[in-house]
């Protein structure tokens, strides 16, 4: 009996030691680039070339951060980041929920086919869509109403959405923005798991589907809302290709500015690292604030294929 206990204890200790060795070694890989970024961004050029300097620089300098700050045009690009990609990310959090609710709760004939299309959109690379969308935004007239109006009246009206936030807001508003397919999927899985009695009670009280959704479903869905918000914020913050394509100099978000710095071979490596740090610090802070809730919410989303 005693021996069995000891054996059990040793295996459990050994197990947790093995787990920690494994987690720390893999966690090191995840944290490694951050260490390097921090140490490189604080180094002077001499320290970078000095072979004896490994992580801790001999003289700590903040010059790199200053240069990176100026080159990023931090305040302006932060403003356009918040106004264009981040706002469109927040719009997506709302619109994808609405679409997903339609897929999760109601029955109509073409539902499965359409949901297949939602999944298929995950596979469409934005590279393919960019040029057609570009020309579409340059002369925005999807229903050809303006063209007809021009023909009838002989005027030359044109709506040009390029270099405005509409290039990102409009697709998000119709829940076909950046990675909406993933968000619709996450929401739908959660909504399907909610008991039907929730809304039935509301229907008895005379609510219509929309009020039932707003008053009953949304308040009990903090879990997927937090998950989608975190992902949406991170992905929109990082988005580079579409913003680079659709937005001109005056509206460039941080990601595009960082990319420009990254490609500038004349800059010292420390400046690029400092720029990268400045870039990830805001999103990292938001993540650290939300992460407790987020990690907990992962536990509950229960995404099952």
């Amino acid at each position, binding site marked *: 009996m005693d021996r069995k206990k000891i054996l059990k204890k040793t295996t459990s200790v050994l197990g947790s030691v093995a787990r920690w060795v494994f987690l720390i070694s893999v966690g090191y890989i995840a944290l490694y680039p*951050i260490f390097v970024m921090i140490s490189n961004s604080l180094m002077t050029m001499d320290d970078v070339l000095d072979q004896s300097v490994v992580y801790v620089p001999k003289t700590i300098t903040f010059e790199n951060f200053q240069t990176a700050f100026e080159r990023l045009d931090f305040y302006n690009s932060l403003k356009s980041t918040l106004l264009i990609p981040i706002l469109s990310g927040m719009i997506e959090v709302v619109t994808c929920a609405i679409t997903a609710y339609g*897929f999760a709760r109601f029955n109509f004939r073409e*539902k499965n086919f359409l949901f297949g299309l*939602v999944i298929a*959109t995950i596979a469409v690379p934005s590279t393919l869509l960019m040029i057609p969308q570009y020309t579409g935004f340059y002369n925005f007239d999807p229903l050809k109403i303006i063209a007809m109006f021009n023909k009838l009246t002989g005027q030359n009206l044109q709506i040009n959405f390029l270099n405005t936030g509409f290039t990102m807001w409009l697709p998000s508003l119709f829940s076909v923005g950046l990675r909406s397919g993933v968000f619709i999927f996450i929401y739908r899985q959660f909504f399907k798991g909610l008991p039907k009695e929730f809304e039935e009670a509301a229907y008895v009280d005379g609510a219509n589907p929309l009020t039932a959704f707003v008053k009953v479903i949304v308040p009990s869905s903090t879990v997927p809302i937090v998950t989608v918000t975190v992902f949406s914020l991170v992905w929109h913050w990082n988005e580079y*290709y579409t913003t680079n394509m659709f937005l001109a100099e005056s509206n460039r978000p941080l990601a595009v500015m960082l990319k420009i710095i990254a490609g500038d071979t004349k800059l010292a490596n420390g400046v690029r690292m400092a720029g990268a740090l400045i870039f990830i610090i805001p999103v990292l802070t938001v993540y650290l604030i939300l*992460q407790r809730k987020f990690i907990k919410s992962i*536990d509950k989303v229960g*995404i*099952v294929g």
Partner: protein
Amino acid sequence: MKSNKKRRGIETMSRRAGRLFILPWEIGMVFFVIVPLFISVAYAFCEVNFKVGGIDYHFVFLDNFKYLLKEDPYYTDTLVSSLTSLLYTVPIIVAVSLILGIVLNQKFKGRIIMRAIFFLPVIIAAGVVLDILTTQINGQPPIIQLGSTSTTMSDGGGYLDATALLNGLRLPEAVTGMMSKYITMIFNLLWRSGIQIILFISGLQTIPDSLYEVSKIEGASKWEEFWMITFPMLRDVTLLVTVFTVLEEMVSTSNEVMSNAQSMISGQQRYDMPTAMIWFYFLCVLVMCGILLVPLFRSFKRKWD
């Protein structure tokens, strides 16, 4: 009779409400995805020239594809290497994230912190920061290497120290070369499995504890438990993760076909050839997935149902 009528009423309402909820998505889908997608297919069969005031294109049918497959010196090589790298990166990513998901799902002190660390790659790896970390500048080796096809790691491997570590073991050079290559590969793969880990954790959460209790009473070992309970219960999630990984790897810029196409668009302002490149690549991936994945999951299903 009466209740039948009432039920039909509810069904109609459900149909109408469902269609109403997804209506915005349908509109967006048509104007921002399907139409641009068709235009891009058309471009693949055309010769496209950008000029002031519009786009000039004329139909050349299969000429773009013929050029790519017969005359382009790089395309077939990059296509083959991209496809083969998909063949081995996807299973490894799925396996690595499954293992990490299981470990991180266990109850132990500090798992919240560990999960937070493992989410870091999702934040960083999604964007421009990764470009900075992976590009070589001013003769310095990049901080991390992506694209497991790269063999340059053995030259500049000082960063991970895998080579140095293995050299100490006095193994034959061929063996150390191989091993350091695989260690580096794991390093790279972790960077691409953030979301997959999250999906697996949420899948693991849905397995009822009672199943494990029963197996414990029946005297099953941990190994049997994994193969008889965990893995079968995760079948749907595994399918989801696999599909998601294929899609991510397919459109990621660490993939040579995609990065070549992208640089052709932004560098040479060409659109016809890159779309043809991407579409042909897509077709190959689809065929490959169809051949490999469908029978695999069919056989899984037969075994466990």
